[in-house]
């Protein structure tokens, strides 16, 4: 198609329409980011005078005894993305079956936890997992699976998995919704063709379904990896990052330093590590996506 030369009216529209977006980008994204990098070179109290430290915050953080603990927790927490994908894919395949009735109702039920504020879901699990009066402990005891109550939130090993699984339970419907849309967009005739050529259920899944939803899978994995590592209200609420630093995933540490100890320089220092960690995790998936789909603007 022939593209006409941009007229001056066109140019005005572009400038006017871009103004709010650009102002937003500068004032709310990149200026604060650079300001944060600057702050990370100081001991920067909530109220009070900053004191220059150079790279000392970075050195201190890497030397801290909780550095590796935090990295390990962050890694375990990020596995939640994998569990979410498993649940979401299963649910999407189930609901995409033509013989399932009331599809919309079930879809509505399944996304309940995701629609609610994460703090609401966190409060619910705080109650259900309470060692004294919680439903989970009650049934595990009653059925003889455990002999005495488990302190889910204060036992280091359990606490890590509890926050990971609660995150899984809360956020899987995001992937589910997008994967279901992708599945529903696959033309039914492809499956018929597959059947004519004698492909069994598994072969049809591998050769028809999977290639069609691969792009959607990569996108949701990338987004969820990033979102999960930043959406930390639940770990903050359930364990507060403890016991010790056992559940202090990097973003909880950012929040702990900023909100609880009021050490803003250190908080942003940890944030920089979080940016690096997230980028490293996302890179392989982004690379795969870029190579295969070459998103064009």
């Amino acid at each position, binding site marked *: 198609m022939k593209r006409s030369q941009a007229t001056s009216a066109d140019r005005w529209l572009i400038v006017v329409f871009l103004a709010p977006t650009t102002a937003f980008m500068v004032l709310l994204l990149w200026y604060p980011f650079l300001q944060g990098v600057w702050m990370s070179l100081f001991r920067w109290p909530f109220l009070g005078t900053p004191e220059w430290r150079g790279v000392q915050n970075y050195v201190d953080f890497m030397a801290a005894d909780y550095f590796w603990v935090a990295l390990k927790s962050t890694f375990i927490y990020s596995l939640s993305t994998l569990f979410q994908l498993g649940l979401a894919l299963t649910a999407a395949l189930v609901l995409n079956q033509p013989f399932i009735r009331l599809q919309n109702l*079930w879809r509505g039920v399944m996304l309940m936890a995701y629609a609610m504020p994460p703090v609401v879901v966190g409060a619910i699990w705080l109650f259900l997992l309470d060692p004294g009066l919680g439903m989970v402990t009650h049934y595990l005891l009653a059925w003889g699976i455990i002999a005495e109550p488990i302190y889910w939130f204060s036992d280091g090993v359990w606490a890590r998995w509890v926050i990971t699984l609660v995150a899984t339970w809360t956020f899987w419907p995001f992937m589910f919704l997008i994967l279901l849309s992708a599945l529903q967009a696959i033309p039914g005739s492809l499956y018929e063709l597959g059947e004519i050529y004698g492909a069994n259920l598994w072969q049809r899944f591998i050769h028809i379904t999977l290639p069609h939803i691969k792009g959607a899978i990569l996108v949701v994995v990338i987004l969820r990896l990033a979102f999960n590592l930043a959406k930390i209200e639940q770990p903050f609420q359930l364990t507060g990052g403890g016991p010790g630093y056992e559940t202090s995933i990097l973003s909880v540490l950012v929040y702990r330093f900023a909100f609880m100890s009021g050490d803003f320089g250190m908080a942003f220092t940890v944030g920089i590590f979080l940016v690096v960690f*997230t980028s490293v995790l996302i890179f392989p998936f982004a690379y795969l996506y870029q190579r295969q789909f070459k998103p064009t603007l």
Partner: protein
Amino acid sequence: MALRDDRSTPTQRFVTYAALTLLLSQVMIPFGYVFVTAFKTPGEVFEVTWLPEEWSLEAWRDVFVVNEFHINLYNSLIAGIGSAVLALLISVPGAYVFARKRFPGREILFYLIVGTLIFPFILLIVPITITWIQVGLYNTIVGLWLAFQIFAVPYSIWILRGYFARLPRSLEECAMVYGCTQFQAFYKVILPQAKPVIISVMFLSFLLGWNDFLFSNMLTTGDGPRTASVAIYVASAGGERIEWEVMMVMTLITGIPPVILYILAQKHLSKTFSV
């Protein structure tokens, strides 16, 4: 869906229904118990029962009379509405231009904004808090609205741009043949076509404000615009003294509106995300 013939075998059906039952029960059992608890008396909360001996509305009364939770709900509502309005004002014009106009620096600008989606936005809490204190936005509702945009705008631009780009290329040209100016072509022809995606963006950024905890908690204090999420967090940090039946009422009141909104918006959302 109706177009596809159903050739499933009985085994396939059985496995599918079994999986559906499991998936639904892992959602329904916890929520069911929360619902029941909200109608228990304080004494009965300590027993794991599915049918309260007497259905009590005491907790519901306490939530409003003692905790004055309606104030927090109102703050959440205002936070959500402002978040949605601002997100639309900032991102709709920008996304339109990104999708349908050509200009130098378009790609780099687009990636500088949307690339921040995979950025752990929580770390911007650090400089934003300090700046908000300096400029007087700390502990104000406007401060919250602006802070929510850190996530809302990149997400909205990403969704909107995809949708605008899928509309036929000739729409504006046709409009201008009929005498519309550039701007009229945008708001008389493109905007009505983009109704599903605009509703989706409005809905998602409203929920962002309604559901947020991290920014709302960091940027407000007890005597500021404290939202429902923050109030629930404060209540849940009470340790031994938590009144669980009251808390479960709060979770229901705060959690159910977003679910209803999701169901109402589902039609538009599926149009938006069917890429």
